[in-house]
């Protein structure tokens, strides 16, 4: 049914901006600009966070910068693809995306390489591919496609189906184990449930069940001790015997010592002397906070807020339920990642390995985020067609 529409729309791209009916006329340039600004910001900070250490090791100080720039460039290409191909094509082929995601997530457990205690990626030449990052996007598309196809209210059967759909890839990611990405899935699931009209008490019941399950998981020792430590250290930061509390302490020190205007770009003592761990990936916000202060941090948060605002706006403007839910899902994924990532560096969220979208160094995450933003652009520009 929707294949026809997709076909006509792709033909319509050729004359481009000449017609007001053309989707190209409705590209959300604000969202594009905000995303590009964050990516550029990220390049600068990745360089700042890695140049000293690379230099000391006798390597090219711009090594990580160059790679991240490459990721951004590819990411822009991916964004164009996910924006150009009508989202209804993705919607109607969601089962393929979903099946592919599950298969790849299963494969990575068997064939993936072992990095930092996780089996989460394939080594492809000099790059590592992390399927779970792309899984966030395909999961959002899958949920939107399914809920969008439901006629009438979301009943018990539909809710269970949604839970089951999310549960399979989430379980596979849990096995890597990648707690952070699992939490992103849960956030996306919750947002889609709320937006799809599931009754408030059902959501509350699910949340309660989730809390009980989490407690049991901790109690029954399903989590590894280091995971429990990392998740709970923010509750008791004085317990500095734990490595994780040390990380948190250094991270807060970095951000706090930045003050209003920061110590100056490239002049962070905490982040340039590697007191803060993973500072070009998960803890990149500490480099912003220390070197550019409240001004730089607030600017970054504002850029994210713009992305979230434009995504929310697209959700509201979307032509159909699937389009709305794609945007809601993407909004949830980005918002949760920003909140969790920035929150953990400031000690208000547990420490888990979640990248800061478009800022943290990493190819898979960068590509996946651009793909997600491409989808939002897609929904936005096709709101009339």
């Amino acid at each position, binding site marked *: 049914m929707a294949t026809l529409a997709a076909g006509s729309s792709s033909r319509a791209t050729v004359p481009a901006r000449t017609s007001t009916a053309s989707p190209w006329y409705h590209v959300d340039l604000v969202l594009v600009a905000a995303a590009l600004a964050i990516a550029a910001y990220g390049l600068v900070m990745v360089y700042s966070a890695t140049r000293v250490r690379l230099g000391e090791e006798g390597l090219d100080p711009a090594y990580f910068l160059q790679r991240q720039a490459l990721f951004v460039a590819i990411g822009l290409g991916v964004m164009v693809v996910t924006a150009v191909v009508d989202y209804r094509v993705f919607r109607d082929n969601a089962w393929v995306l979903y099946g592919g995601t599950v298969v790849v997530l299963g494969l990575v457990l068997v064939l993936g390489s072992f990095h930092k205690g996780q089996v989460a990626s394939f080594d492809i030449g000099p790059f590592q591919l992390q399927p779970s990052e792309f899984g966030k996007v395909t999961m959002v598309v899958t949920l939107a496609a399914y809920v969008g196809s439901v006629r009438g209210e979301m009943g018990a059967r539909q809710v269970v189906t949604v839970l089951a759909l999310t549960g399979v890839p989430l379980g596979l990611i849990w096995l890597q184990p990648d707690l952070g990405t699992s939490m992103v899935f849960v956030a996306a699931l919750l947002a889609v449930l709320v937006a799809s009209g599931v009754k408030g008490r059902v959501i509350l019941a699910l949340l309660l069940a989730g809390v009980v399950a989490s407690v049991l998981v901790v109690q029954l020792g399903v989590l590894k001790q280091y995971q429990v430590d990392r998740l709970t250290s923010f509750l008791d930061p004085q317990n500095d015997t734990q490595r994780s509390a040390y990380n948190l302490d250094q991270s807060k020190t970095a951000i706090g010592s930045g003050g209003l205007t920061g110590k100056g770009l490239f002049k962070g003592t905490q982040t340039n002397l590697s007191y803060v761990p993973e500072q070009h990936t998960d803890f990149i916000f500490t480099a912003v906070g220390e070197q550019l202060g409240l001004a730089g941090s607030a600017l970054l948060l504002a850029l994210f807020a713009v992305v979230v605002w434009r995504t929310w706006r697209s959700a509201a403007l979307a032509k159909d339920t699937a389009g709305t839910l794609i945007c809601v899902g993407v909004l949830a994924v980005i*918002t949760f990642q*920003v909140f969790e990532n920035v929150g953990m560096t400031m000690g208000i969220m547990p420490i888990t390995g979640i990248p800061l979208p478009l800022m943290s160094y990493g190819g898979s995450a960068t590509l996946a985020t651009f793909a997600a933003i491409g989808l939002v652009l897609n929904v936005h520009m096709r709101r009339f067609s």
Partner: protein
Amino acid sequence: MPGNLHLRLAVVGVVAVSLFSALFARLWYLQVLDSGSFVQAATSNQVRLLYEEAPRGRILDRNGNVLVDNRRSQAITVNKAILERAPDRDEAKVKLAALLGIGLEELQRRIDDVRYSQYKPVPVLEDATPEQFTYVREHQPELPGIEATIVSERTYPNGTLAAHLLGYVGEINDTELAARKKDGYRLGDTIGKSGVEQVYESDLRGQPSVTKLQVNSAGEVLGAPLDVKPAVPGHDVQLTIDVGLQQLAEDSLAQGLAAAREQVDRNGDGRHYPAPAGSVVVLDPRDGSVLAMASYPTYNPGDFVNGIKPEVFAAMNRPESYFPLTNRTIQGQYAPGSTFKLVTATAATAKGLISPGATIRDTGSYTVPGCKGEQCSFRNAGGQSYGPVDLRRALTVSSDVYFYQLGARFWLGRGQYGNGIQDTARAYGLAARSGIPLPSEQKGFIPDPELKKKRHEENPKAFPYGGWFTGDNINMAVGQGDVLVTPLQLADAYAQFGNGGVRFAPRIAARVLDRDGKVLREEAPREAGSVDIAPATRDAILQGLEGAVSARDGTAAAAFAGYPERTLPVAGKTGTAQVTGKKDTAVFAAFAPADQPQYAVAVILEEAGFGGTAAAPVARRIFDQLAGQPPGPIRLGTGSD
């Protein structure tokens, strides 16, 4: 899809706005409200100051012989804080134990040795072989907190020689640190704890090297040091003592005490004298230089290097060890007995109470006029009577009766003479610190009616009598009663008489030198007081003191039998002081050559019997060597008083 989509999107939007607001609020808190504390934490994070103590200055004797030196040793040290926190500590310990050729338990015992400062790396091996040293340096990544470094520590080439004078070093304590923080001392620093090490601390201590390093989170040093202040070695202190004479004094003291312990107290309980402790001081009367200073029992300052073992320290502080850390030459306070007669004689002649030639009939005892009863009668120590004695002879034979009379006359004529004996005693430097630059010097005590009353009022239990009687003066006149002197005071008083009346504050250091031997500061002799002695009096007293050593019936004659009196004439005085509940203190004070002395010697042996029997032979052995005669083994004579 139901129609309330916008409401549901609003919920999603509100949640998103709340989360961003929370982030911004937290950001505000960290970067604005609480930023100061984080700035501080970040600063202390990145800069490490590395201190390395400078080698301490050496301590030399008057001829440049090294008494205290530094030893540089290639040591393997363990930084406990780093090692115990390292994830691979167990493997590292196994490697280290194998390298040292010891078991893991022994290694842990060395690491946990309580002697070492918790602020500094613990040496687990001193004098490492070059192979061991290089191994540690080349395997740093596998040996966290384990280092191969050169350590500098105190060594004592002469062992225990002059231990009390030199003192020992140790880790700075809280009180010392509080007092010296402005001088750049830090926790774990070495500081002089006693003796010259303490007094000349500021000369001996150099300036530590300070290396300012930028470090990352792993403690790894980044690049070249930000700043390096090289160490400045401490200055050398050259003492006035003479190694040879010091050795002689210590040997003689130990031998004299050993010989005294062989003796039996025939007049008392018939038991051996315990003779547990004693002192010898040798001064140069011309400028107050301390030539030798021996206190027995002694200790090994080397035991304190790198911290003393608790069991060794506990043993030192047990009463049966007689407190070897005490420097009895300045901290021991003794009744001087008849050696005090020098003071009484000087006082009596100066006040015109008696002329040097006037005689008093010594009948063997003296009874206070108008007084009846047991306590009114005072006997000569030996019970003999010497017939009519003048000042010279009273000193030579140590007639108590002669001085009892002087004591009584002072009291009876107190309206005219005042506290004449006490005044003279103070003019001889008694009851006051000598001014020797050593810590914990005691003042001794010279009683007078007022002090006695005050002591009684302050502490009636310990001092039940507050009144002053003739007997108090009589006792004082022969150095008994409450009179107390330190061995150093006694030597200084005899030096003062010997040089004609000038008393010097004893000095232990002659000068401070830099490493190249350049003199930085001279410690000039310092006059501390004087006493006027008429020539006639001086001649009489001098002859009396010479007689005590060389006359046939002199109290020290037996001890000095066969001594080359012509080569180095000695003038001296014996003393035998009674101590309640203990055996007599043997005392001998002397100087030589008698007319223009270059040496003043005081010997005080606790619970060792007669001064002439036990103390004089110790001095004689010293004078033997000074007179160019090889000192023989000490054989106690039959001298008295």
